[in-house]
């Protein structure tokens, strides 16, 4: 009976089956191209040397961290307003992927920070707000998984994602201010250095690759979850009949 709510997931599943291989293929292509151009063909930075190549992973990952959260909030709004079950599932499954990108951004940033700033971590505004974003993701994941009833967890998660999306700019803004108050102006950062096109192309390729990767992962997760819910329903129905 509750399967009736997944009547259109059948259509979604069909669509996803078509889109997903394309995402994987194109994503892999962009990834290889971006890595090739970035790691082998682009110039080393005159200041930073070879370590600048971390940028090709770090920056797109950081972008994705924000992008995925925005998507999640959007999906949550759709789920809450129109009660669309697919939006629920999308928001729920986007969170771990977003957390993954955020984690990659944090780790690559740290790895970059070690040679650049001589330390793995500083309490800089941008770093700290990414860290908080990571916690928002973790809180979301924890909440969604803290209920025995899958749907209940998903809907609680949707509310949290919305509240978080209101708060995210506030956090960013407050952390920026906090930092300017406490931190001496010596924060090491490339203040918008004019980037070479030789750096820009691989950067964009990587960004596209990450986006496609995200879509592919999301589709895979969503399909798995829909199938899992179906199986559970069937099992319940059979238990009820016997």
């Amino acid at each position, binding site marked *: 009976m509750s399967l009736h709510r997944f009547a259109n997931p059948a259509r979604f599943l069909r669509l996803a089956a078509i889109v997903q291989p394309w995402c994987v293929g194109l994503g892999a292509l962009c990834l290889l191209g971006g890595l090739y151009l970035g790691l082998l063909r682009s110039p080393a930075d005159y200041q930073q040397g070879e370590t600048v190549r971390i940028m090709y992973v770090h920056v797109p990952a950081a972008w994705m961290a924000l992008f995925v959260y925005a998507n999640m909030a959007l999906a949550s709004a759709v789920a*809450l307003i129109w009660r669309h079950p697919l939006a629920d599932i999308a928001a729920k499954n986007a969170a771990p992927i977003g957390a993954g990108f955020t984690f990659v951004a944090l780790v690559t940033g740290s790895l970059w920070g070690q040679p650049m700033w001589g330390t793995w971590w500083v309490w800089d505004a941008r770093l700290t707000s990414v860290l*908080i974003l990571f*916690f*928002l993701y*973790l*809180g979301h994941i*924890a*909440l969604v998984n*803290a*209920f025995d009833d899958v749907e*209940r967890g998903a*809907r*609680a998660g949707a*509310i*949290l994602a*919305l*509240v*978080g999306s*209101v*708060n995210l700019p*506030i*956090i960013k*803004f*407050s*952390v920026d*201010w*906090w930092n300017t*108050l406490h931190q001496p102006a010596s924060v090491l950062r490339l203040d918008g250095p004019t980037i070479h096109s030789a750096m820009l192309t691989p950067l964009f390729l990587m960004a596209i690759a990450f986006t496609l990767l995200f879509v592919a992962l999301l589709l895979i997760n969503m399909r798995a979850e829909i199938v899992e819910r179906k199986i559970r329903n069937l099992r319940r129905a059979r238990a009820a009949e016997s």
Partner: protein
Amino acid sequence: MNAFAALVRRDLRLALRQGADAAMVVAFFVLTVVLFPFGVGPEANILARIAPGILWVTALLAAMLSLDRLFQADYDDGSLEQLVLTPAPLALIVLAKCLAHWLTTGLPLTLAAPILALSLNLGTEGYPVLVGSLLLGTPTLSLLGAVGAALALGARRAGVLVALLVLPLTIPVMIFGVGAIDAALAGLSPRPHLLLQGALLLAALPLCPWAAAAALRQAME
């Protein structure tokens, strides 16, 4: 409106009769603040330097302590479903519970803070701003906390989960709170920080009860 007052009065009465939660909150606040001189050593200047931060962080953590119980007791004994069935808007009911929570945690914390500040050698310029920023900030904590508590209702390990949900959201409140005191100590005007704290409160005042009410309705299912 009648219902609002009745609910606040009931929650206050329950808190005063049993009292464990509010007392726990203040006791935790005092204990943790007192702990830091042990850790940092008794150097007055370092203590004074970190005093605003310590006071705000511990106030925040102390508020967390009682949050998971905000709706839990009412949920367990069936009072919550009756509250949901009351004709009054659910957001108003949430607001009443937040007010009662603040009166039993935020307010005592605010009152205890100056005494603790003394033990941390906070500069005299800091006191009024400390109290002011706590007065403006702790209600926001209660409001944000209500959202977390409502979301975590029926979840396992609600206590830690609530903290996990709420702490990231409360960071701006704390940043401006500490900022205000630091500004006052540095001889600057704390006004912009306090105004921002006020703005946060004004934003949270309608939004949080609404979100918490939505979450509570979910929990009834």
